């Protein structure tokens, strides 16, 4: 039986399609419509097959109508499909809910200790000057800790450095200056006093003290030694000022006071205005408004001589900055112990 390709029928089909599309409420309804209308066996294909029986003069008109029908069917189904998908998505989204105000599940980032932060920053500041960073032993001989550094056995300066002695007769280094002695000795014995010496070293030092809010038996220092002809006190002050300004910002005040260290001459104590009271005076700075953050000086001629260097030809300077103090000042910690208390509630937050 031939298909009815009369314009009337095609228009009726179009109207029927429109009605069915309106009634399609689900994806299944739409799948059925697709099968009936656009599959290989669907109405549209069947109508097109009938086109070959249409007289030639009517073909253009009928074909145009059929194309119109096909486009309407395809677009109608596609559009309805989109609408249904959108409705379904909307329904799904409106039914789903999670309370995002509940706490997150995370390991959270850890943190780097304030002392390490200070050490890293100073190392970075010093890098353009060509400093080599080295480590040294914490258990030392008294030669490296005292004797080679112009601290004779019964000098009152040894009082400054209440020393831990081990059962083997060694000492726990009282300052990182012992690394300076090792480096200078190494250069003297194994490297024919090669110059310049530009070495930085940092780590723990120990003093045999009773612990309280402002004293710990262990503390950290950042040691630097630079030996080269022509270095002056002004260079030393310049480098320390540069480091402190880089650490704390240009507005932070820096000053220098005379000190005594047997291994340096002149000896200098760098100070910064207290971060807690901004120089007004408070318990953490002993009311002075200033905090001494280490010791420094031009290397004593006796120390240079000890390591086969001629003080008439070369000079050098060294400093040992108290990294624990620097860290305390960087993070406004009211007392030194806070740096070593390892309270994770503080350590996680301050860095």
């Amino acid at each position, binding site marked *: 039986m031939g298909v009815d390709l009369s314009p009337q029928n095609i228009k009726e089909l179009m109207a029927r399609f429109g009605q069915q599309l309106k009634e399609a409420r689900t994806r299944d309804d739409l799948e059925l419509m697709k099968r009936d209308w656009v599959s290989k066996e669907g109405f549209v294909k069947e109508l097109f097959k009938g086109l070959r029986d249409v007289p030639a003069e009517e073909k253009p008109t009928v074909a145009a109508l059929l194309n119109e029908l096909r486009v309407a069917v395809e677009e109608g189904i596609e559009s309805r499909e989109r609408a249904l998908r959108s409705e379904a998505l909307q329904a799904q989204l409106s039914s789903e809910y999670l309370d995002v105000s*509940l*706490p*997150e*599940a*995370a*390991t*959270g*980032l*850890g*943190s780097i*200790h304030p002392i*390490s932060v200070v050490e890293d920053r100073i190392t970075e500041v010093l890098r353009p000057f*060509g400093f*080599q*960073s080295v*480590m040294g*032993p914490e*258990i030392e*001989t008294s030669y490296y800790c005292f004797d080679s550094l112009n601290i*004779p056995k*019964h*000098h*009152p*300066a040894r*009082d400054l450095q*209440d020393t*831990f002695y*081990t*059962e*083997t007769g*060694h000492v*726990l280094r009282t300052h990182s200056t012992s690394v300076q002695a090792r480096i200078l000795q*190494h250069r003297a014995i194994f490297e024919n006093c090669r110059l310049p010496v*530009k070495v930085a070293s940092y780590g*723990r030092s*120990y003093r*045999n003290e009773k612990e309280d809010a402002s004293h710990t*038996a*262990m503390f950290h220092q950042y040691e630097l030694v630079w030996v080269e002809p022509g270095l*002056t*006190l*002004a*260079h030393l*002050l*310049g480098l320390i*000022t540069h480091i402190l300004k880089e650490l704390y910002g240009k507005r932070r005040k820096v000053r*220098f*006071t*005379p000190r*005594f260290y047997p291994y340096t001459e*002149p000896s*200098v*104590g760098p100070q910064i205005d207290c971060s807690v009271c901004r120089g007004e005076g408070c318990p953490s700075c002993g009311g*002075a408004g*200033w905090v001494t953050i280490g010791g420094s000086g*031009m290397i004593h*001629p006796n120390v240079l001589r000890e390591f086969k260097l001629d003080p008439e030809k070369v000079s050098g300077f060294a400093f040992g900055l108290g990294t624990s103090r620097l860290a305390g000042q960087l993070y406004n910690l009211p007392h030194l112990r806070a740096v070593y208390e*390892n309270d994770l509630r503080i*350590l*996680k937050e301050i860095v």
Partner: protein
Amino acid sequence: MRLYVRLLEKLIEIPECQVAAASHSPLRVLLDDLGLEVKGVEASPERGVIYTLETLANRGDHLSHVGVAREISARTLAHIKMPPVAGQLSDRKASVLVRRATDKCMRYALMEMSIPTGMALRNDIACFLEEPEKLHPIVSILNYVQAEMGQPMHAFDADKVEGEVSVELSSKPEQVEALDGKAYTVPEGSILIRDRKKILAVAGVIGCQNSMVTGGTRKVLIEAASFDPVSVRITARAMGLSTDASYAFERGCDVEGLLPALKRLAYLAGGSAGTAKDTEAAHVIGITVADGTVTEKRKVSVALSALRRQLNLPRLEEVEVVTRLKNLGYQVEASPAGKDRELQIAVPPWRLWDVRDRDDIYEDMARSVSLNRVRPELPPLDYETAPPNSIEKLQRVIRTALTGSGFVEVITPGYYSAAEVSLLNQLSTGIHKRHMALKNSLEAKYSHMKTTNVVNLTRLLSANRKRGVLAAKVYEVGRVFCLPEEMPSDEPRERDELDYNFEHDVVSFASAGRWFEGEWRKPESLEEHLRLFKGAIAGLIKGIGCAFSASKSESPFLHPGIQGSVKCGRHVVGVFGVVHPLIREACEIKEEVFYGELDARLLAKLMIGVPAPEVSDFPAVWRDVTLKVGVKDQAGRILRFIHEASIDSLSEAAVVDDFRKPEEEFRRVTFRVTFQHRERTLRGEEVEASMHSLIDGLMSKHEVEMAP
């Protein structure tokens, strides 16, 4: 040193120092700037301002008001008004003979004085002394003169001295009863002041009861001397005593300060001061001085140009330099005018202990012009930037790996107590027994150097859990210490970086409580926590560019059944696991603590950097295989075999399930083996062949069976 501002005002014009603003007075600022650090402030309308100064250990001359005035004078260029002294002491000698039998006493003087019965201390002296009413007036005046001029002196009751007074070294340990009423043993080799029968004083340290001045004393012998600083120090230390006198002598006194001090004393104690009635005044009877070596006339020469360069003050005038140095007590002569003026500088006798060469003069000049006037100058930059050392490189990897996993860096002490040593000794017979003891710790909590960080980190976690930290995860890059089997030589030698005699660098890390933060979340199981902990280690090892694996280990401070060695490629670099219950108990933490300790030196050596991985664009194919694994066997062993099997296309192997049915005596562990070829898509039969080969190998070499 206690600095009485009113006394200082008598010597020199000083910057303002009001009682109400003593803490921030211009004088205090000046003192700090001069290196006379103010450590304490007392201020009252009655006594004015008293500063407690911390003086420099090489500057005995700073322990007097005149010494402080000299420093101020060099800075402000104000003149010092030296305190008045008696014009002439006496032509007569004291009634006792003095014998100086050791060169450790450079000079010794005894001044004999009569003491009136009603001797009273003048108020203008008493106000500068602490509790003068407890002392005989003559002793108070000695103390005053020491505070003023720096010369320690001592008074003997002349009637208690028998025969010649000698200054000599002790040939054996001696017992003395000192002025403080305590008995002391004085070591052999100490300088002693003796009469014919007894020890009168331990030179420079303290006098003895047997010759003490009392209310009934009518005649005194005033001792003023110059003693060897080291000798005084050794004796005072051995006696466990530090007196004002020993403190001053140890730091070096003016070797020519004896007579001026005695003259000052005679002035104040005698009628010369004008306020004491003659009947209340002490009178000099005679004086005997035993001189030793002649005071050295030391000279130092300094080129003005070098001084200017040091201070970076090119316009520093010669006249300014000379004036400041003279105010410090130096005598200065300039060489004839020329291109580079040299100053010949004679060192004053009170500075012979610390001024030896031109650097000391640089220091004095820097202090007197102020270090803060020195113009800082940045030294030259260097274009050969040194690379970071191996520990620094390692630290970067560690920080990235561990802070990324939520670990917080901590710093723990290098030591612990004997209790911890005893705890670890219970657990170990090996290296951890080789603790190095500290001989002289002031506190029991630091008696030994630590051989492992497990106790310190466990204790730290315990404290933080008690503080309410839910997920406590910490790490530390530090040192542990141990006595080697053979004592190494201290002779200098060429060393590798990080090669030390008694210590080595370790990375230690620990975790307790939860892994993830958040109270609302279910805590991780022991097994899950262990895996997360191990994952952090794996991240670290991968970060240094090595393959990570774990195998059996026998660390004494970890739970014997929950621990493993950490392997970096083929090298065992450390251990990890659950902390031994005994350590946990000692550290007062009830829950499990996870701990790992790695050899940082070895890690640093193995660190090769992580190259960019070679990846394939062709599809990956995987196969799962479930094998029977013994309950206490390690699945990691099988995994390692798979990794090391020589199959070209094998790209990854992992455990994806570990399951044990309650009724079975084995675990079912599922391994996922992934194959991927770099240049083509693998065929199914190739993959099957590889899997067969792998399973055959496992069955023959490891005697494993497929799970039913």
